[in-house]
């Protein structure tokens, strides 16, 4: 006999097929080496012992009764807290190709239980909306065929830099040059910027690997790449190094690490590339930064000047700023002054229907060095799911509106607009970036693409992995646990950063050459792009092509 056992069922009881990722285990291939369960970041799989009953049912045999046979297999947990995230680390370590996650084909019923204890789902990653983006669909349709000088991307020299900083009108520039007035600082930088990912959101090995790669790009490859710190401060010895010139220091409402930055000012060997004032973030507009307690290690706590192991939310607004005017005046002027007006200072806002008002304020502010607008497809280390998936404004039309507004004022060459949020979301980083530049951006910030390309981030738009918030990143990119981040070799990250920027540089030339353009970026060159979507073409004021 077998005991009559009954599983109790609760509202949250789920079957394995209800999960977003389903573990497939091929028992006949498995050697029970234990590596999959050892590596699984979620504890989603375990060794299960099962028992079979084999009743003796041969009708002509006198023998009756049951035989029992036990067997083993790897099974997935059906507790939503341990649900498989599809990272595939199990299949990466499996020596026998015996295990791996496959996307669940049924409905993902765990979403109904993501709000246990009354707290809605928070996660890291990106907006879980997959498929080609609008940027992916833009084509470069103005090709110089025997008309303009034929340019060869492989042979000709191209200027692939952009200007970060306020450019004076010729009259103004002459007047100030002659009379000794202040000339706002500018930087000639590579237009693909590593966007703000904090020391804290990223692991030390990832963050330093990126910076090492950026330094290599500048000093060995001659590609003037810069990266933004994000809102987590900057290690003091980096502040005192010559690499500071490749760093955009971010200041945001949490003010993490700024005491160390100010302390380092007298000892800085060079100026930072720029100062970014964060007012908003595309992934979670209207919500502040968030570093969950899992990631506030001793090191991070020390750099940020906070207690260890606490949640670190930054308020959605700066506590001492109450209006656009005040934000622009107070913050930009203070930070410009801090670096003796030699460092460009610009704000970062979430893409929004109100972006133009901010831009117009900046146009009138002599200290503003640009505007960075972050669209809905931006990524983040931690945010509420609803903010990430459903809040925000796509980047393309926001950039376009702002650029056309500047053009209408004749100011389009004076204050640069930078775009962020979903550039390279599907891997087409140079194409997406160049499309945005032709729509009017002077450059783009890339975050997720860099994590994926330089460090092998496993996340995708189909809710794969996306656990950056809880510090269990299996690649060690966003973890503060040395047992995880030591998996990541900073040298290899740096090499991949160099690879990435070398190829972006080449792809930019491959896009610029057919335009017959080699000596300046085609910023706002919207006659060179088209899209096979009439409504989008109309909205963006570009060619409809079919």
């Amino acid at each position: 006999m077998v005991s009559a056992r009954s599983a109790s069922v609760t509202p949250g009881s789920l079957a394995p097929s209800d999960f977003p990722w389903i573990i497939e285990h091929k028992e006949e291939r498995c050697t029970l080496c234990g590596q999959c369960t050892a590596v699984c970041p979620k504890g989603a799989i375990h060794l299960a012992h099962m028992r079979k009953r084999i009743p003796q049912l041969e009708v002509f045999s006198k023998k009756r009764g049951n035989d029992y046979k036990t067997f083993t297999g790897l099974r997935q947990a059906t507790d939503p807290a341990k649900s498989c995230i599809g990272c595939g680390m199990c299949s990466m370590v499996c020596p026998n190709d015996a295990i791996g996650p496959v996307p669940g084909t049924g409905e993902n019923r765990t979403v109904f239980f993501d709000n246990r204890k009354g707290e809605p789902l928070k996660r890291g990653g990106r907006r879980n909306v997959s498929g080609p983006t609008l940027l992916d669909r833009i084509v470069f349709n103005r090709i110089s065929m025997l008309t303009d000088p034929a340019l060869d991307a492989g042979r000709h020299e191209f200027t692939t830099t952009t200007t970060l900083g306020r450019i004076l009108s010729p009259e103004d520039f002459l007047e100030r040059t002659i009379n000794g007035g202040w000339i706002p600082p500018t930087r000639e930088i590579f237009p693909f910027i590593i966007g703000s990912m904090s020391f804290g959101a990223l692991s030390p090995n990832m963050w330093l690997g990126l910076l090492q790669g950026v330094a290599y790009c500048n000093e060995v490859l001659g590609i003037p790449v810069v990266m933004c710190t994000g809102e987590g401060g900057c290690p003091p010895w980096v502040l005192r190094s010559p690499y500071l010139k490749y760093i955009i220091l971010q200041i945001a409402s949490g003010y993490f690490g700024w005491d160390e930055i100010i302390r380092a000012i007298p000892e800085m060997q060079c100026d930072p590339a720029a100062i970014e004032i964060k007012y908003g973030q595309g992934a979670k507009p209207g919500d502040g930064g968030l570093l969950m307690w899992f990631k506030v290690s001793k090191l991070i706590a020390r750099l940020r000047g906070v207690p260890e192991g606490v949640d670190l939310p930054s308020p959605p607004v700066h506590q001492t700023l109450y209006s656009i005017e005040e934000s622009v005046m107070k913050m930009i002027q203070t930070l410009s002054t801090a670096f003796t007006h030699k460092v460009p200072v610009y704000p970062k806002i979430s893409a929004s229907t109100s972006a133009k008002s901010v831009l117009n304020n900046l146009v009138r502010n002599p200290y503003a060095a640009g505007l960075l607008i972050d669209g809905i497809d931006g990524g983040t280390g931690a945010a509420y799911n609803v903010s990430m998936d459903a809040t925000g404004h796509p980047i393309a039309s926001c950039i376009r509106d702002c650029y056309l507004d500047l053009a209408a004022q004749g100011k389009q060459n004076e204050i640069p607009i930078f775009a962020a949020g979903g550039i390279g979301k599907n891997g087409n980083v140079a194409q997406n970036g160049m499309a945005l530049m032709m729509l009017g951006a002077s450059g783009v910030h890339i975050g997720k693409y860099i994590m994926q390309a330089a460090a092998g981030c496993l996340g995708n738009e189909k809710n794969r992995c996306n656990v950056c918030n809880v510090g269990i990143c299996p690649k060690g990119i966003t973890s503060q646990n040395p047992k995880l981040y030591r998996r990541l070799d900073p040298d290899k990250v740096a090499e991949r950063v160099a690879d990435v920027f070398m190829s972006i540089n080449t792809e930019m030339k491959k896009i610029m050459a057919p335009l017959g353009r080699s000596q300046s970026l085609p910023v706002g060159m919207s006659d060179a792009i088209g899209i096979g979507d009439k409504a989008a073409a109309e909205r963006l004021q570009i060619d409809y092509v079919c």
Partner: protein
Amino acid sequence: MTITVVKGLDENGQRINSMEFEKLVRKASASATNIVLDTYGQHNIGIRLQKEDGLSITVRGPSGQRLGCMGMPGTSILCEGATSDDVGYLNIGAEITVLGDATNGACNAMANGKVFIGGSIGARGLTMTKWNPQHEKPELWVLGSTGDSFAEFNCGGTAVVCGIDAKNPDNILGYRPCVGMVGGLIYFRGKIDNSFPKTSAKVAEPSDKHWQWLQENISDFLSKIRRDDLLKTLSIRDEWHVLLPITPQERALMFSGPMPMAEFRNNHWIKSLGGDPLRDLAPGLDRSVIDTIVTGDLRRKKPYWANAEAAAPCTYYCPVHIPTVDRLRLIREGKIDEAYEMLLHYTPLPASVCGAVCPNLCMENCSRQGVDDSIDVQILGRSVNHHKAPTIAESLDRKVAVIGGGPAGMNVAWQLALAGIEAHIFEQDEMIGGKLAQVIPWERLSQAIWDQEIQRFLETPNISTSLGFEMSKEKFVELQNEYDYIVIAVGTHAPKTIPFPGHEKVLPALDFLKRAKSNTPIPVGKEVVIIGAGNVGCDVACEAYRLGAKKVTLVDIQKPLAFGKEKEAAEGLGATFQWPVVTDKITDEGLWTKDGELLPAQTVIISIGDVPSLSFLPETVETINVGGADWITTDKAHVTSDAKVLAVGDVERPGLATHALGAGKTAAEYIIADCKGFEWQPFAKEVIPQKALTITHYLPTETGNTEASQADRCLSCGSCRDCHLCETICPTGAISRRELVFDTIAGYHTEHGENYEYISDDQKCIACGFCADTCPCGIWTMTPF
């Protein structure tokens, strides 16, 4: 030797166009091997001209574009002045000598033949050259320098650039030569700007073979361009360098940048930062790279052998916390006497209580139910009936008065006696055992078993009894003076009644049961109604049937609370339950309900519980009034508001006999600890979660009716059964079993004397958790660290 001259101007002095001129040249070459062309800027001179025994063309006038274009082997062309663009374009074998300069595009796509330039060349020389292995490699010799973009996509061409009278002596190869160069070789003499792409070409010194080739061929070049005087100048090996292509294979081995990252890190990164950039924030932080599958301190979890750290459900749910799981292990190990003795250390009444009257809370929670049925613990209890009492510990020279000799008081006395403390029981009745002795029908508790256990109890040293002892306030004070501690275990012996009309006709259950078990039972009528349908009511019903009743009805105002053996016994005899019934009055006819119904009865018994009678209690002992009666309040150790007075059993709150035994044991343990000067520790183990066990290792079987069959069926929850499954499943061989040698491990103590442990080698374990997933007993746990 015939020399044919072809003029580039017609008789009118007009330029002949290139198409007509080509026809004239072609015609001339049909009959002559030496042709002189007085050109006037005609293009494509020498195109597709070939003679079997060779053809020599001298170009005297201004040359047009593409001189020697598509030149054939055996044809030689001498241009006495400078030439225009694309000299030697697609040349496949002609020898072309230009005494002056050549402009852009020299030797573009040349596949064979030689081009000698006595001056310099313009941009994009030697681009797209080819080399067909069935023919010699094409050669370009330049006395001066080259323009920009030299040798782009060069595949086969050998070039020699001598740097004599260079257009730009600081850079004789122009800007960015060798882009996309995949083959060929460039000799050069003089300065270059190193702007060639480092992933396409590399500069080297000429090898001996290179130098020999140059030496062998340079004099021919110099003589062709009529500069034999320079031979010595151009024969200084140190002044010559070569540019060699980088093969894709070589390129694949290079880091895609021109400097290996390790070199950058060591020579630039670390130097500029002055060391590790985090040395101040996190001194000594090790960030070196580790594998994904790790051992030792790099694991995120590690296995822990938590043997006997959690309680099995049997132990946890038993009010006395009798470790049945250990008893069964001792039986499996053949240590039957030890198993019995261990049980007797927990209770003096294993056969009577565990084996008979207890509803066995232990087995209600037995994990074996997940496989088939729970362990039959009554078999185990009964088998201890005849076992002798354990040996008494050395005397502690203390005395304790125990008021009341029921199961609670008995276990206090028993535990104290075994620990070497004298216990004196003061019992009101004429026998000890309390309600077990007084009211439980012999059907449920066999007299033989009972008498045996009472005898064992009374024969135990350190236990003495005073029967028929009436307690009073004064006597209590006397006992306080005489004894170190007083334990009140008087139970509940005042029956509860309800003052409805005719209540004086109603018999309390307690009195009825006590008398039923005596030699003078109270007679009952044919029809009996029992008010209160709990388990005591069921006992009453059974006794009523035994004493002659024909129809017994149990009534209750709520759903009857009776359960288990008592209920089954009553129903077996024919008793019926009726509810909800509210009693209106009792008459001689029977019980009238509030609904006006008559339940005929000659005997009505009320069984709604008993309460303590505490008239002897001093004021120092606090009580609480619940349900109209006073109950003694105690702490976890059963100590009352008077530190030397304890209270156990029903006098605190009504419960099972097992609860009384458990309270008695705890109170005794407190007294023992207090006497010995230790801090008393309550039972604090957590129950092992069901999911920690792996019960699928066990196959369903019949329950069996021997101690051995129960021992074999035990899942050994939370207690290692030494099955070696962990050792077997561990994929890295990290787990092993180790015998413990007590003598050498100072102070080591394992519960119940296991002499082994399982350990996991940190240097082998990868923290897969298979041990925890496999352990049948739930011993191995994975702890994060």
